[in-house]
Structure formats: C-alpha cells, structure tokens
C-alpha cells in the first residue's frame, strides 16, 4: 500500500515529530497521533516518522505490526468493534458476531465492499456489566442480542 501523501499531511506529520523529537521512547505516542490523521499508517507516513525520529524504517514497521491497534490498511467509514472479553464471550458475543457477519456479508477483520463497515474484535474494554458489548465508531452498545443487530446496523445505512 504505497501512496503519496499530500503536502498538508506531510506538514502535519512533521509537526507531530517536532513535538516529540527530544523525548526518549517517543515512537509509540508519535504513531498514535499520525494514525489519528489517516485512520491507519500508510507506508509513506511510516517512512517519514522513521527519518524524522532517526529510527530505521524496519524498526518502525516492526513496532507498527507488533501492536494490534496500529493498522496498515485503511478501514471502513464505521469500525464495529465487538468485545471478546471473557464476560462477553460467556454471555453470547459469538452469536452477535455471526449475526453481524451474515448481515454484512463480511468476516472478522474485513471491510464491506462499499467501504462502510469494518468488523473487528476488541480486547476486553472492561464494560463487563454490559456484556455483550460493542462500539460502532463513537457509539457504544451494551447488552447486545442477536436480534438487535439488524436494528442497530440500520442506523448507519
């Protein structure tokens, strides 16, 4: 996924790097901020971060691929994150997962063809009292049942 960055994006990244340049161990906070610009980390952006912080590109790539919250692929307009913590699992998150998959015709970690939804698992978010729990973009849904899925998804169509 190589893509040219716009001048504006290059400047934004440069500003982030400047802010952290003198701090020890700043790679992860920098990557968090850069990802918030694109929603993922394009190759070109990773290279700019590497040159800017004076770290080998391979090392940056190693860090990006190690942590699950860093993405190297663009995601859909809405990211559905279904919690797969123990409490959610015990309370039927798998049924909810299957329902979403069949409604949207995608499997976990895939994006719908129209670029609208990406489905992901999240690690326990600690909202165990509301299991099964999921978020769509900034919206949160607790005690989700299989039969609720269609109604919830229809809000985003």
């Amino acid at each position: 996924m190589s893509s040219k960055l716009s001048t504006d994006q290059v400047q934004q990244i440069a500003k982030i790097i400047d802010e952290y340049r003198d701090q020890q161990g700043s790679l992860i906070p920098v990557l968090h901020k850069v990802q918030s610009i694109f929603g993922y980390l394009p190759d070109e952006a990773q290279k700019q971060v590497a040159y800017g912080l004076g770290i080998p590109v391979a090392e940056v790539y190693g860090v990006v691929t190690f942590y699950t919250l860093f993405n190297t692929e663009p995601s859909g307009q809405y990211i559905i994150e279904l919690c797969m913590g123990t409490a959610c699992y015990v309370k039927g998150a798998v049924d909810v997962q299957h329902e979403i998959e069949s409604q949207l015709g995608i499997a976990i970690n895939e994006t719908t063809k129209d670029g609208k939804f990406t489905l992901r698992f999240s690690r326990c978010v600690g909202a165990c009292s509301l299991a099964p729990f999921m978020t769509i973009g900034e919206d949160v849904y607790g005690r989700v049942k299989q039969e609720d899925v269609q109604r919830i998804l229809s809000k985003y169509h």
Partner: protein
Amino acid sequence: MQLYRAHVLVCGGTGCVTSGCMDVHAELEKQLEKNGLSEEINVIVTGCVGTCDIGPILMVYPEAIFYQKVQVEDVAEIVEEHILKGRPVNRLMYQDKTSEIAEFIEKYYDIDFFNRQTRIVLRNTGVIDSTKIDEYIARDGYQAIAKALTEMKPIEVVEEIKKSGLRGRGGGGFPAGIKLELGHKADGDQKYMICNADEGDPGAFMDRSLLEGDPHSIIEGMMLASYAIGANQGYVYVRAEYPLAVDRLVTAIKQAKEYGLLGDNIFGSGFNYSLDLRVGAGAFVCGEETALMHSIEGLRGEPTPKPPYPTDAGVFGYPSVINNVETIANMPQIILNGSDWFNRFGVENNKGTKVFAVAGNILNTGLVEVELGTTLRTVIFDICGGVPNGKKFKAVQIGGPSGGCIPAEYLDTPITYDSLTSLGAMMGSGGLIVMDEDTCMVDLARFFLDFTQEESCGKCTPCRIGTKRMLEILERITEGHGQPGDIEKLEELAESIGDSSFCGLGRAAPNPILSTLRFFRDEYEAHIDGHKCPAGICKGLLNVEIIEDKCRSCGICARICPVNAIAGQRGQPYVVDQDTCTRCGLCIESCPFDAISKH
C-alpha cells in the same frame, strides 16, 4: 466556600456512561435550574460506584438515598418530589433482586452489596468528583506524601510498606516493600518508578475504575514509591482501550502540577518529581514487566530474560521499580495511617483488601473490595447475589487467561494468594467470571487458549508453537473430532510449555487447560469418547434433526440450507445429512412448524 443543602452524586463510570448517565446529568442540571435550586443543590459526577449493571445511578446526600436505572424522564420527578418536597421516589430505589417480594431499599448503607465491603483502595471512587483535585485533598489527599517528605526518610517509607505486608496486587503477590527496598538499594543517580496500568486480563476492570474514579491516589502513591526508591521520574503505562481513564489521569496530572504537587522542590523538601503517561497500543504481553518497559522505550513489547531484574537494569537501562495500580493506590493509606492499621485487615501473610471485578453469569455485576481471606461464597452469593435465572453455579474463573477455574465444592475457600495457587488458579489482577451450568468448560479452555495464542509475542518457541498446538487439539475436541490420547497430549504439552516458556504469559498459558482438566475431566471425556457436549455449547457435537411428526414437507429448510444438507420429497418428512450439515441453525429458525431440533 459555598454551602449546599444537598448533594446529588451521579455515577460517571464507564458502565454508567454507556447506560446514558451523561444525558441524565444534563437533565438534572436543567431541572434544578428550572426549579431555582442550582444554588442550593450541588451536583457531582463521581467515579464508578461499583454496581455497574443497574446504572445510571444517582445518590442523594445527606439522606444517602440510592436511585438505580434512572432515565432522563425520571429526573423531573426526583427533583420535584424528592429534592423540592422531601419525598424520596420509591419506585426508583434499589431493589433486592434476591428476595421474592419486591422490596425497595432506601439507604446506600443498607444495601448488601455495599455494607459487606471494606473499602480502602476504593474509598474515594463513587464518592468524589475525580476531575477536582480539591475533593481529593479534602479526603486527606496528598497528606501521606506531605508526611513522608517532611517527616520521613526514604528508607522509613520503605520500612513502613515492608511492615504493612502489602503484596503486589497485579498477579504474583510479590511483597511490595521488598521491591521498594531493592529499588532503594540499587546504585545510580537516575531511577524510574513505573505504574503498570496495562490491565489486559479479559473480565478485569478494577484498575480502570480506580484510574477513572480516583486518579490522584495513583499520583500520590507513585510519588511515595518514587521518594522511597530515589526516583525523580515516573511513568504510568495505561492501555489505549481505556480512553476515559487516560483522560482523567491527564487532567489529574495537570492539576497536581498547578498546585505544585508535581514539579520541583515539592513541599519545600528539595524533592523534584515528574510523572508522565504512556499509552499502550494493544498488546496483552505488555502487562509483563520487561515487555512493558520495552514498550515505554518505544520498542516492540517483547519480554527479555531476567536477570537482569528491573531493579538492576530497567527502563533505558536504569534501575526501575514497577508496581500495579492497586498496589500503588494502597500506599498513601498505609503511610498516612501506619502499617499497624493496615495489618488489622486480612489474614496472615495476606494483609489488606483486594478489589475484584465480578462479571459473567452473576446477578450484580460490579466492583467489590473485600478483606483478603473472605470466602468466594461471600463475594459471589452474599455480595453479588449469585447466579440469575434460576441456573446452577458451575465454576468461577479467576486470574484471567493465566488463572484457573474453581468449582462449587471450593466456594468456601478463603481468598488468599496461597489458597488460590494451591487450587491451580491465581489471584491475577482480580477478575472473577462466574459461570452457570450452561458453560462448556472445554470450550472455555479453548477460548482462553485462542486468546493467549493470539497474544503470544512470538519470541520463544514453546509459547508461539506450543500454544498453537494445544489450541488445535482443543478445537478438534470441541468440533467433535477428539481422539483417544488427546487429554494426555494436552497434559504433556502443558507441562513443557509451562516449564520452558520465556515469560509469565507463556508459563501460565496452559493454566486454563490444566485447571479445567483437574476439575472437569469428565467433560473432556464426554466430548472425546461420548461425542457429547454436556452443556450443549459445542456445535460440532450437536445433531440437527427433523422431527417426523411435525414436518409438513414444505421444503423451506432444504431451500435455505447453505450447504444443501437437507433433502426430501413432498408427502414425506425431510432428512438432514449429518455429514454435510454445518450446524449453522438456519433451518431451525426458518421452519414454520418448529419441526427441527438441535441436541
């Protein structure tokens, strides 16, 4: 200072926010304004109260009336009836769900869930507004660090924590005082103190609630520990999955700086201290201390062998002490009240309290703090109300993916580090997942293995490949293809992975299997030899069958079946080909005559 006639506390923990407490809060402010009460009534948004499944929660003081599941529509009634006319609204009060008669409990302190707890660590959560430093100070906040900096030498702080018997609350239970002593004795001008807030165990949310509800207690605890070891820089490593906790901690650090509680020459003592936040990026292994430190350095969060121990060479190669959130939150109270006071709580070798996050098939999900030595039965049944829907209690999972299951016959075990270890489980960070009779223990073991296998960082072979092989065997068993000898193979693999893995993640990875095998071996045997899943969970062991008497041979099931496993002809009952069938259940849902069953 302005005086108020009454205080209304709105719980602002993650659970309540999800249930809509922010809208309730806005409506409350609006209604108070409308009734001209804004000057008389003080509204405070607090951290997590602990009863997360009945939010949004409001508490009205001085009467200590506890309202549950408050909706926006209910707010006007509370304001007009209770706050204006002094008539508390019965229908919104807490209801004892275990009693058969609908009984409303008015007062906060009459509720079993609360009055059986001992709150040391959680003393401020759900009571104060965590975004206001003044409220923390009003509850004796920052007095412990003032006492330490002005009256105590660093070694005296170390001694006091040692005498308290406080053990690490993050899992292993290593004595916190000894860790501080090692840090204190380490050579070097530059040292680091680290707070491990990478609460990755699924089902655990104690640290999150503490960070959200009482962030200043973490700052003060970090200052005490840093002063004790001689560090001027601290890091709090929080996982990125907790945005609200990050937010509250950032606010708290900013306020502490403004008050001169962080910075140079604190309390005129010459002690300089700076505290920074590091946000994780989604890697369970970063809860392991060496991996966490590499993550702070901006590297891949892979563990490295010990020695060197962090107290010799930690972050950036300097001596570092690392403790869990709850351990650190205990320290201000110990320094302020003394180790003798702390020793009054708990039992021999297990002093103080422990916070548990209770979830799963349980009536009252929530946060519970009890003295160590309290029995599991007290926590699960007396405080949290037991298993709902008339189901039977089967087991409780404690310690997350590194822990184990404890079945019903051990419910009267007092909870201590040692008793749990002897049962093949561990304290872990304190997540308790309660499971009812409908839970399949083989499937549960598979779930945990799936987790550890995916979270294995891949550095050492036993963990990377061993967990994969164990997972494959478990998948085979739950899909109905278990083979004789699988149990023995699992045991053999478990032993070698436990012995030879690099870090705690790998060494503890077989625990869920070993513990379910210990207490529920018959379920494994039923899956393998009897081709049955006793709990009815494992799809591969279920048969989809058409009940002849009920089938009207309409053919809907045959058309809907995605794998063409159903065939038949008009006038005769249809038949499912068990070899082709994937047990997806679509036919069962589609049958208009309820003629298809899964068993």
